[in-house]
């Protein structure tokens, strides 16, 4: 029910992308662990939300007109105190003034270092809903280390995906880094595949990055495109 309400709202506003906080709300409603973010409209609200979150925090640009947030300085990580939050807020607003003068920011907690992965879906012309899993960043985009399955899939099949990628060893722990919680990843992949299969309104999803830790995994950023 909640899923449809979020989608309806975006449709009414003529948008084909959900904002980050909408996307995360939708995912959380399906039992997918997300680092929730809150929208702040001005500098002071940003600071007070940052205090509520607890430092360090992450600030990201928030606008229905912006899909790729990091392209021109819309993401500031690891802000440790009030002054750097204020500076980051001003930079974001300045960087995006010409794209969207009404752009605001989101505030979320900065998590410790995990292994970053990508979980996504597409609505393929031939196969219908398809779920993807890969290591994030250059692993996916340059090395094409990503695997696909027709949705929906079982947790066992999701486990095969996790083991199938070439960089699978990075998840099992290497050079002193601990192994990450692949069961949590499997669980997210399975839930995302069901979401893509059950909700025909969703065309594409990017849960990117998803941070995997020795215990648990969480969606740090999410993008959902409607049909």
């Amino acid at each position: 029910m909640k899923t449809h309400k979020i989608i309806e709202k975006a449709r009414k506003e003529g948008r084909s992308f959900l904002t980050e906080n909408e996307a995360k709300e939708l995912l959380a409603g399906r039992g997918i662990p997300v680092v929730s973010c809150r929208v702040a409209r001005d500098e002071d609200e940003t600071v007070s939300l940052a205090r509520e979150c607890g430092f360090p925090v992450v600030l990201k640009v928030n606008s229905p007109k912006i899909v790729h947030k990091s392209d021109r300085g819309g993401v500031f990580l690891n802000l440790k105190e009030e002054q750097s939050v204020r500076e980051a807020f001003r930079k974001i607003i300045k960087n995006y003034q010409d794209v969207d003068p009404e752009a605001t920011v989101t505030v979320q907690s900065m998590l410790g270092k995990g292994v970053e992965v990508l979980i996504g879906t597409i609505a393929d012309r031939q196969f219908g809903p398809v779920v993807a899993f890969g290591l994030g960043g250059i692993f996916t985009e340059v090395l094409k280390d990503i695997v696909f399955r027709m949705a929906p899939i079982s947790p066992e099949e999701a486990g095969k995906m996790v083991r199938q990628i070439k960089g699978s060893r990075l998840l099992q722990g290497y050079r002193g880094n601990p192994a990450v919680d692949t069961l949590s990843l499997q669980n997210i992949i399975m839930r995302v595949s069901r979401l893509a299969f059950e909700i025909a309104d969703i065309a594409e999803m990017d849960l990117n990055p998803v941070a995997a830790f020795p215990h648990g995994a969480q969606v740090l950023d999410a993008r959902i495109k409607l049909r």
Partner: protein
Amino acid sequence: MTKEDMEIMRRFFDPRSVAVVGATDSPDRVGYNLLDSLVNGGFKGNIYPVHPKLKEILGIRVYPSCIDIPDQVDLVLIALNQRDTIDVVEHCGKLGIKGAVSVAGGFRETGDEGRALEKRLVEISKKYGIKVVGPNTLGMMNLEVNLNASFYPISLKKGNVSLISQSGGMGFSIIQKCSDEGLGINKFVGVGNRTVLEFSDYLEFLAEDPGTKVIGVFLEGVDDARRLVQIAGEVACKKPVVMYKVGHSDAVNEATLTHTGSVAGPYQLFRDIFKQFGVLLADSVPELVAACKALSLCRLPAGGQVGIYTYTAGPSIAALDRLADREISIPGLAPETGRKIKAILGEDLPVILRNPIDSGGLGIQPETYGLLVEAALEDPGFDILATFSCPHKNWRNPTKELIAAHKKSSKPLLTCYISTVKGVEADREALQQAGIPLYISPDETAWGVAALVHYGQKGSALSENA
């Protein structure tokens, strides 16, 4: 597919009588060659050429129209242009004929008019319950009843492999390779434009067909890959399906704004998803045929542990590379096998005892070769064995010994004689008769092994069918 549809397909693959509409007396025309294929293929049922004026072709009486044929026709082959084809299918539908093959081109591939004709064909098929192979196909065959309903009058070996091809040319390439490999074919169908009967219909039919043990598929592309992979996956739980898909260019959707969309290449999707559903994929005609051959002749292995015996290292290393491509690694040698090998070759061996077992020059002699193969087959760690040798003008091949060793074991045995297709014809016949596939290259041998391992690991349901 409904039971009725299945029955209709069974009937037109095994017809009592076949009509050829558009039969002519000119050998350069398709209509003549459809008739020639039927006659020279040795079809035992009744054959009725249809032509408005001619009286006799190839010594067979010609009828002016299907309505004049004094018999129940089970299958009509239509060698007319696309517009006349539609009229004839409708006419045949009214006469109660349930099966047709249409070779005509000029349908959807030419644009709107062709698409409209196909739509009409679907309507006619629904209205009269007539099933159509094609259009735009070279035809179909059922060698079990000597039916060659294609316009290529060729003679082929009868066997248990059935083939479904989206392309006439590639279908032909596969058939010819099967002939080279001494591999018998059961049924062949060129699906053409798949207007009425789809890939999945043929797959479902062949899954239930008692004459078919293995299904080979050549695929260019389909509109509903979701349904195809689901059906292919279901069928692959009953019988081995080997699929060769062309069109590997990874042209992605440039318009997408998500990372996932921008890296989702069509062939990678195809490969990952067909694997997800347990269907074996081949990357070439030789691989498709090598896989079908092993699955046709061998029983399925109890596990995926591969043993290799050779007296020349190179081919076994090449085969190992191919196996590694398919994520198959090989186990070590059991100590008792090492003791047996020493008992055969002597204590002071110039080679290291491991898997692949490489006997060097000591194992060329057929009697020794046979003993070593027997020892390898008895290794408790091996589920399947591949052996290599290089035929020589003055040395006898170990054919007799391989057959004898195979008889004593329940494990699948494949062998490679490095040679030409013609050079090992007699050995091939003898070995394959005994259930040992003979290949002439290490790559094909490895592909055969990989196919057996793939389906061997799919579980007991398939083994019971095989």
